[in-house]
């Protein structure tokens, strides 16, 4: 046994491989052998003897290095290899020290890993969304182009598609190339089942602008956009994998739409391609169709603004320059197209062209919530660091004796600092590694769970910058939170510490102050975070309780479109739609049913209109919908004046419209403008005047948390013109039931089948889900913030618990004396809990002040909630105080178990 150890020791030394060193090595080897022999003689088993010997010797590598340095007359100047070997020694020693107190080490490790994990995952999202370029080559040259008319709205964030052909004139001067994207809805038959799949139409130039090509197959060519060409599609990698089993032979195959049309798949995009980008107001598409400039598109110039233009700047051209060049074209449009832009100019003022960075548009309004979340995880990390620091302080105090002896043995201050840093770095690096692993998983979860696939269009991942930030955090934390307590431990005088360690009746004053600061700051940080999360959650519950203007409960909606081929004329469409509604009403349990062209919160159809008697310069915008009779009753939209539509409002009766309260008040100056006239479009548009027959309550058209838009409703049965028919060929049906019905979807399909078995029922879902989606981002952010606050509370609770627990152990002797002189159990509890609550109260005061200053940052994110909401502040303060009571009660009970006679002899 001993020779084996000796030889392995020598083999270990041969790494350093110097013959000059042989004597020193022999000398040390002799010591090792003698010590082992003695332990074995004392009855230890050989392995234990070996371990105990190495323990006893301490850091051999380092001592050997120091001895050699003396031999080489280099006591002061240590060579590089000595420094390295002493660092290696420090790390080994550090690992041994950490292993000695495993529970404490693991606690510190987990605290730090949690903090780092939360920070890294949020930062990698922030990094991708706010800092990293969009995942396209040279993406800083990508811009969005939009048109606006000062009198209508400042900026409509879209253009009238036909104008793209005019803007193309600037290609080569302002822009290298320019492209269009338009949201489409497609219904594809996959394995005999109709599936609605988000789609987008792109001009062939889109691939050139974005500089992305299909991973398999080809992109659109100009020939694909001609009327004669067969329909072709490019599909996303996601759709290809999900629905077509990642089959490369998909290229050239046909997909079939529910209308019976087919299209050839010509390309599959790479996995990283997520388009349209979030912030453009369209869902990320899985199917891309070529955009065609049909006669209809050309006729809708200055009327339809449902396409988004984007382009790539010419090298050396700034956004301002591009805006000026495109603006010149914009000013010519009224002259070129007097019938469309010429008239719009009269009503809407000059046409404005805006060129904005595509990046800024894509990020949209997500910037502030992300920064708030980043701040929140920063707080979590701070609290985690304070926990780690308190553990280090506890360790440093416990190791006072060791430190003192090492000082006596000649260790310099620098040497000790190096030792502490090595230990801290070892622990925190392990914690960071653990945190990074957790972050990898958490980042994926964040991307997957974010509403509307928001993050998936960005390149979210752990990159060099994220790693650098995590590494930097680790090093800074190690420096600040481990060396400081380490140095404090060192300050004690070596001589006295060896002999008088722990003999003071009450714990050292400076150490107690340190502990107080830790408790106070943990409580303060956790409180700020809790208040922030509390405000967000309160705001969320306020949004949830907002009245959308209809009753979404027990309402199921679905989409259904009548194909052109089977339903060529207006009367057949209206008849089929009325029959479907009739069959739906006959389903047992259904109380009412109807249909609308535009369901609230599903993207409004905005129109311009002329109120009766308004000055001609004013062309306001309203949301519009075509509805079947019974719609308002089915949605339970309260009637404020006049009447609802009836079955009698048909072709041949005078045109009737129903408007909302806001519209009545704002544009007719009356709560009940029944009998007054309404006109769609500008004053000189050819649309006939219609009469207002009813006023309904306001409806949230887009989202729960917005101000209601003025809205106007037309009766489907009175509309016969081309555009209107195309709007009601596909309707959203609403079905109200008495209670939640099982198999309602199946009953709906059966009812529709009785009208026409070829019709496809799509997107059957409860109305409240649609309402919920409009506040999903709010909910997501509030939930995350709530999660971080919970984490902060848990960390702060354990931190306070740990500090007090340690403090009770340190004060064992004092407690023993108190019990011996007659202090009762409740006195002891009062002592510990009282002290903790006192400190927590200071923390609460500081935290309240901090929150007072900081909550204004989230003011913009709050809905109907005062950032200084008293109830939230009070409740959060109470939570923190309760945690302080709880986490001090347990150590206090421990204090009760102290046996005075043992305690007084302690140490």
């Amino acid at each position, binding site marked *: 046994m001993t020779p084996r150890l000796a030889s392995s020791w020598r083999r270990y030394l041969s790494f350093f491989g110097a013959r000059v060193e042989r004597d020193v090595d022999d000398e040390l080897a002799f*010591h090792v052998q003698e010590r082992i022999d003695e332990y074995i003689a004392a009855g230890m088993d050989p392995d234990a003897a070996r371990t105990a010997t190495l323990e006893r010797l301490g850091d051999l590598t380092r001592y050997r290095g120091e001895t050699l340095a*003396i031999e080489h007359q280099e006591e002061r100047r240590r060579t590089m290899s000595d420094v390295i070997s002493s660092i290696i020694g420090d790390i080994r020693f550090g690992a041994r020290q950490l292993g000695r107190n495993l529970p404490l080490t693991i606690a510190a490790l987990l605290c730090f890993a949690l903090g780092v994990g939360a920070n890294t995952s949020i930062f990698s999202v922030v990094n991708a969304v706010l800092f990293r370029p969009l995942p396209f080559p040279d993406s800083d040259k990508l811009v969005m182009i939009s048109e606006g008319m000062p009198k209508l709205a400042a900026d409509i964030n879209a253009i009238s598609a036909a104008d793209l052909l005019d803007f193309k004139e600037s290609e080569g001067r302002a822009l290298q190339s320019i492209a269009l994207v338009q949201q489409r809805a497609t219904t594809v038959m996959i394995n005999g089942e109709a599936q609605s799949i988000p789609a987008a139409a792109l001009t062939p130039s889109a691939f050139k602008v974005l500089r992305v090509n299909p991973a398999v197959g080809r992109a659109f060519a100009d020939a694909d956009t001609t009327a004669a060409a067969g329909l072709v599609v490019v599909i996303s990698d996601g759709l290809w994998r999900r629905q077509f089993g990642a089959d490369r032979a998909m290229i050239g195959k046909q997909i079939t739409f529910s209308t019976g049309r087919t299209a050839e798949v010509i390309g599959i995009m790479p996995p990283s391609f997520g388009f349209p980008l979030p912030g453009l107001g369209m869902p990320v598409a899985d199917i891309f169709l070529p955009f065609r400039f049909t006669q209809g598109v050309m006729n809708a110039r200055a009327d339809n603004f449902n396409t988004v233009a984007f382009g790539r700047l010419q090298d050396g051209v700034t956004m301002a320059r591009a805006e000026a060049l495109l603006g010149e074209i914009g000013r010519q449009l009224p002259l070129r197209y007097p019938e469309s832009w010429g008239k719009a100019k009269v009503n809407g003022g000059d046409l404005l062209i805006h060129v904005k960075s595509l990046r800024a548009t894509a990020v949209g309004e997500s910037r502030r919530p992300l920064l708030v979340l980043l701040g929140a995880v920063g707080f979590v990390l701070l609290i985690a660091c304070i926990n780690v620091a308190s553990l280090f302080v506890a360790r440093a105090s416990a190791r006072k004796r060791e430190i003192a002896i090492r000082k*006596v043995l*000649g260790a310099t201050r620098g040497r000790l600092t190096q030792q502490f840093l090595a230990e801290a770095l070892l622990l925190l690096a392990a914690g960071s590694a653990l945190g990074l692993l957790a972050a990898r998983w958490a980042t994926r979860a964040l991307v997957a769970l974010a509403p509307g696939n928001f993050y998936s269009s960005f390149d979210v991942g752990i990159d060099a910058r994220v790693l650098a930030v995590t590494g930097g955090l680790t090093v800074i934390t190690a420096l600040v939170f481990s060396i400081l307590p380490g140095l404090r431990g060192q300050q004690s005088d070596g001589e006295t510490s060896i002999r008088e360690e722990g003999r003071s009746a009450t714990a050292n004053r400076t150490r107690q102050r340190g502990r107080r600061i830790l408790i106070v700051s943990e409580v303060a940080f956790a409180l700020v975070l809790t208040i922030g999360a509390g405000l967000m959650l309160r705001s969320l519950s306020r949004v949830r309780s907002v009245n959308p203007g209809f009753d979404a409960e027990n309402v199921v909606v679905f989409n259904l479109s009548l194909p052109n081929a089977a339903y060529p004329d207006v009367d057949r469409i209206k008849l089929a739609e009325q029959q479907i509604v009739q069959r739906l009403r006959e389903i047992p349990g259904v109380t009412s049913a109807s249909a609308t062209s535009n369901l609230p919160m599903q993207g409004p159809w905005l129109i311009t209109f002329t109120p009766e008697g308004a000055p001609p310069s004013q062309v306001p915008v309203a949301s519009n919908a075509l509805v079947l009779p019974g719609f308002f009753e089915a949605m339970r939209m309260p009637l404020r004046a006049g009447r609802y539509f009836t079955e009698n409002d048909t072709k041949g009766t005078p045109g009737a419209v129903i408007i909302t309260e806001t519209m009545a008040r704002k544009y007719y100056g009356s709560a009940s403008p029944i009998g007054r006239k309404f006109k769609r479009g500008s004053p000189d548009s050819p649309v006939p005047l219609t009469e207002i027959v009813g006023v309904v309550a306001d409806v949230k058209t887009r989202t729960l948390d917005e101000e209601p838009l003025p809205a106007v409703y037309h009766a489907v049965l009175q509309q016969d013109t081309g555009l209107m028919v195309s709007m009601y060929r596909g309707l959203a049906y609403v079905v109200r039931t008495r209670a939640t019905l099982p198999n309602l979807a199946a009953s709906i399909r059966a009812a529709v089948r009785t009208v026409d078995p070829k019709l496809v029922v799509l997107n059957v879902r409860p109305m409240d889900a649609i309402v919920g989606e409009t506040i999903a981002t709010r909910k997501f952010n509030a939930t995350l913030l709530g999660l971080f606050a919970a984490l902060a509370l848990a960390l702060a609770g354990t931190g306070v618990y740990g500090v007090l627990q340690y403090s009770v152990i340190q004060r064992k002797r004092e407690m023993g004396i108190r019990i011996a002189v007659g202090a009762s159990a409740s006195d002891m509890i009062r002592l510990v809990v009282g002290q903790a609550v006192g400190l927590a109260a200071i923390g609460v005061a500081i935290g309240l002040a901090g929150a007072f200053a900081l909550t204004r940052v989230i003011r913009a994110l709050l809905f109907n909630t005062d950032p200084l909401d008293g109830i939230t502040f009070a409740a959060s303060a109470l939570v923190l105080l309760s945690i302080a009571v709880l986490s001090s009660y347990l150590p206090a009970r421990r204090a009760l178990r102290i046996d005075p006679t043992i305690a007084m002899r302690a140490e």
Partner: protein
Amino acid sequence: MSTSLDLLQGTLDLLVLKTLSWGPAHGYDVARWIQDVTGDVLRVEEGSLYPALHRLEKRKLLKSSWGLSRNNRRAKYYEITAKGREALASEASTWSSFTKAVTTVMTSADRPAWAK
């Protein structure tokens, strides 16, 4: 010895010199002796003894030679030099006057003037 040893840093040196004043010994013996005499209160990391021994040898307070141990192993024996004995004597008196002074302060019942 004209220069006085730094008290804290030199405490181990002092212990080593004192040990070897009883006669030549190898490093392991020195460690054992300090351990036995102090009842393991000064739980010195044994490895730290060697830099001290070599430092003292460099300063010619000790000299060394290789010999065989009781177990017939090759061991390095240290012996105190005349210069070493001088240093020990002067350091020992410094040490005891230091501890005496500290003890006096610590056990004094006389209040300082400003506290009366």
